């Protein structure tokens, strides 16, 4: 028991949940009212954002489906729910998401450890590379994945293994896409855990495994749960991967909603399916909140740079080699397939496709602007979306850190909902809800970063929250006793400690915005296409030049993503000097 307590610098007699930890009597009285006001102030902006840009549009499209001539038509609900194919879809959606999450955790947790604890050359670059799949349009990445798993792919040529017709292709592709979520969310916190605690446990006689299980694992619990939740929500709403690698026999709820909304215009059925998806996601969120609340506690965080060191002994070198091999096979090879295809022109290797991107005319009229302009558009949109996501998500995380009641926990779950909502629901919702002044944003460019920020916010909240909650409450109280205002206490205590998490969150928000396709495709203007939208437009046409340009733009998207993340890493290194 001594060991377990060593990770909780808070008084052991207190409940682990900071939310329920009683504050000193004096500050409770003064702080109670002020705290409530502050919390409300912090929550106002995220609440308004979600009300206007998520709840309202989604409610509008669902209502349009279930209400006609001023009356509710709920008869459709049992009808749809009774359809065996819908139940089958729901079952497949759920189990493939659970399996993908499990597999991703199994493959990526060793990676998180390696990235957190080992220092090796090229680590920063590799951390950026594993995040690249995250931004790639699934159409492109799926096609690259076929180059690995499909007929004539690498595995086929080496060992005669073809996975492209089995569910394994879907699961492995989900690992490919979500590896970074685990490495970044869990690894980010792991790097800041003080290794001396585990070492102390070892000195006191615990086996390596026992020390890990009783010291490190409890401390990592919330971050692992957060990563698992995000991977689950991402794979639950998987669309492109299922279509390309699963083929027509596999369909998720997301595919069904897309078909009903965008193709059949059967809004009542789409509305019921959306509600089913909400119910499923809400259940997952409740489960997540329940598991996490029991584990969160203040932790001793240290500078990440101090915890990483060169691997020692054959076991550690072996682990590093194993992780690198997995990353190479699962992530680098499919990406390399794309790069190879972008360079493989009609007359051998060269930059033909890249040169063609530079003029609108070279694209055979596919674009009103030179396709390279999409780089600038994507960067601008993603930058604005990142700011939106950081402001909204940061404030929400700050509000959620404070002593929280039931209401606040509900708010926490609400912020995650966009990840579990079909992009077509959001895209169509925007179009029918934001169509009247003062909110007629349909023709405005700002609608794109707004939609992208919606997906970015959950990442910001989930990355920031475990770290913010790990900040020892007594530090804030000490600041308050010394006369600091809550804002000042936040600036002087929380901000320096969470600077790293903030950079990780910004990286996620940026990457997610850069890669967002499902909603953007409905709302981006054709003269201001983003990179994924431009890639899809090229891929929709026959001809080698079009295909090659799609691959070239995808490669550029990868580079843009990797460079942006590397730049963010740099900021982060400077930041962590403040520890």
């Amino acid at each position, binding site marked *: 028991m001594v060991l377990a307590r060593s990770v909780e610098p808070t008084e052991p007699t207190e409940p682990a949940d900071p939310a329920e930890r009683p504050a000193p009597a004096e500050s409770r009285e003064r702080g109670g009212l002020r705290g409530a006001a502050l919390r409300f102030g912090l929550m106002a902006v995220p609440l308004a954002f979600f009300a206007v840009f998520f709840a309202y549009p989604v409610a509008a499209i669902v209502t349009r489906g279930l209400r006609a001539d001023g009356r509710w038509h709920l008869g459709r609900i049992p009808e749809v729910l009774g359809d065996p194919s819908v139940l089958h879809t729901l079952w497949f959606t759920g189990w493939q998401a659970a399996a993908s999450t499990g597999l991703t955790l199994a493959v990526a947790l060793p990676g998180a450890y390696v990235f957190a604890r080992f220092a090796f050359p090229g680590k920063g670059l590799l951390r950026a590379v594993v995040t690249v799949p995250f931004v790639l349009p699934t159409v492109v990445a799926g096609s690259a994945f076929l180059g690995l798993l499909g007929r004539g792919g690498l595995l086929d040529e080496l060992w005669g293994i073809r996975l492209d017709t089995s569910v394994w292709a879907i699961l492995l592709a989900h690992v490919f896409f979500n590896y970074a979520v685990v490495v970044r969310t869990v690894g980010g916190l792991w790097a800041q855990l003080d290794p001396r605690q585990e070492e102390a446990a070892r000195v006191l006689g615990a086996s390596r495994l026992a020390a890990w299980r009783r010291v490190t694992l409890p401390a990592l619990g919330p971050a692992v749960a957060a990563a698992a939740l995000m991977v689950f929500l991402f794979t639950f709403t998987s669309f492109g991967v299922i279509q390309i690698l699963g083929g*027509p026999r596999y369909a998720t709820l997301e595919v069904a909603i897309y078909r009903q909304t965008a193709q059949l215009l059967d809004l009542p059925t789409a509305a019921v399916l959306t509600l089913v998806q909400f119910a499923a996601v809400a259940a997952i969120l409740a489960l997540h909140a329940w598991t996490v609340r029991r584990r969160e506690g203040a932790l001793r965080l240290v500078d990440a740079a101090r915890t990483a060191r060169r691997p020692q002994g054959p076991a550690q070198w072996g682990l590093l080699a194993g992780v690198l091999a997995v990353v190479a096979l699962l992530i680098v090879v499919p990406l390399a397939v794309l790069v190879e295809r972008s360079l493989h022109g009609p007359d051998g290797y060269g930059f033909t496709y890249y040169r063609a991107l530079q003029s609108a005319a070279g694209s055979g009229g596919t674009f009103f602007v030179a396709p390279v302009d999409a780089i600038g558009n994507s960067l601008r949109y993603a930058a604005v979306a990142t700011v939106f996501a950081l402001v909204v998500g940061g404030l929400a995380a700050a509000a959620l850190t404070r002593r929280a009641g039931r209401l606040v926990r509900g708010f926490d779950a609400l912020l995650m909902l966009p990840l579990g909502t079909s992009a077509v629901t959001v895209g169509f919702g925007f179009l029918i809800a934001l169509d009247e002044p003062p909110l007629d944003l349909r023709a405005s460019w700002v609608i794109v970063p707004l939609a992208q920020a919606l997906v970015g916010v959950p990442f910001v909240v989930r990355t920031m929250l475990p770290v913010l909650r790990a900040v020892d409450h007594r530090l804030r109280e000490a600041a308050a006793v010394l006369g600091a205002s809550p804002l000042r206490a936040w600036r002087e205590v929380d901000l320096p400690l969470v600077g790293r998490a903030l950079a990780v969150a910004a990286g996620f928000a940026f990457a997610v915005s850069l890669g967002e396709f499902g909603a953007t495709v409905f709302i981006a203007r054709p003269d201001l296409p983003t990179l994924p939208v431009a890639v899809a437009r090229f891929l929709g046409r026959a001809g080698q030049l079009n295909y090659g340009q799609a691959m070239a733009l995808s490669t550029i998207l990868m580079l843009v993503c990797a460079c942006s993340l590397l730049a963010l890493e740099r900021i982060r290194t400077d930041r962590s000097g403040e520890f």
Partner: protein
Amino acid sequence: MNSHLRCAVTAALVGSLGTGVLSGCGGGAADGKDSKTVTLVSHDSFAASKAVLKEFTRQTGYKVRVQAGGDAGAAVNQAILSKGHPQGDVFFGVDNTLLSRALDNDLFTPYEAKGLDKVPAAHQLDSAKHRVTPVDYGDICVNYDRAYFEGKKLAPPKTLADLTKPAYKNLLVTENAATSSPGLAFLLGTAARYGDHGWRDYWKKLRANGVEVVDGWEQAYYDRFSGSAGGGKGDKPLVVSYASSPPAEVADAKSKPAKAPTGVAAGTCFRQTEFAGLLKGAGNTKGGKALLDFLLTKRFQEDVPLNMYVNPVREDAKLPEVFTRYGAKVPDPATLPPRKIAKNREPWVKAWSSLVL
């Protein structure tokens, strides 16, 4: 872009304060209401040369702003959902498979565009009321990999019936009719040839002959089809694609081959005609009518093939050389009346899914 950037910074700084500020920044929203601008709402395959759009501005004084969202089906559905508050003045891109839905939802204001006399009657599917104006047409056909069939000394298939013959076993890849528009068109083509019930037997035979179904055209054409120059190493020499795919394969090549690397089985085609219409509640009705007229001018019509890889509806519009040289002649494409498609689409796709998938 500068104003956008400034706006971005402002929005970022005050974004947290609320939404009023954001909508104020929507510089784009303002030009939509300008009477000198006409807004064309379309799907994301719409394309036109800059010079041609400039020509329109020169002739009429109106500038064209294009607003696109998703594929053809999604774009039509969006237009229906925003009926009353349309996103623009003219909608382009509703085809015969979706026409009934658009007309039943009363999307368009009738307008008889100038130049219709040059358009064959077969394309004028709403000639009584002129709610929509035909602009282009294209055929969905089975394409074949010329090199494969030459290598095997096998004649490529010509008709739908050929596809069920043992010689072509396991050679065809098509798209899911439930999720892909060429996939749906191919299904409709078989229904047009074999009748409301006969198509089921045809597909049973096709299935027995080893047809492969993938979800989208991109996967079928680039990943599975062996004749496309781009993409992976496909092993299917037959694919459901467009009649214009062979010209597209050679359009960018520096040295033009004698024949396109792929060909079209002309007896397997289904014809799609695309229409445009003046949206009800349009802010700029006059500009919209001028744009509809312009879509039928020779200048625009001759610009259509190389931009969207479809054929102009105007009889006297000249086709570019890649189309005349490498394109296929489709003398007798299958068609179905839009009303029949609207009525049967959902049940047919359902029946097809349980039959083939």
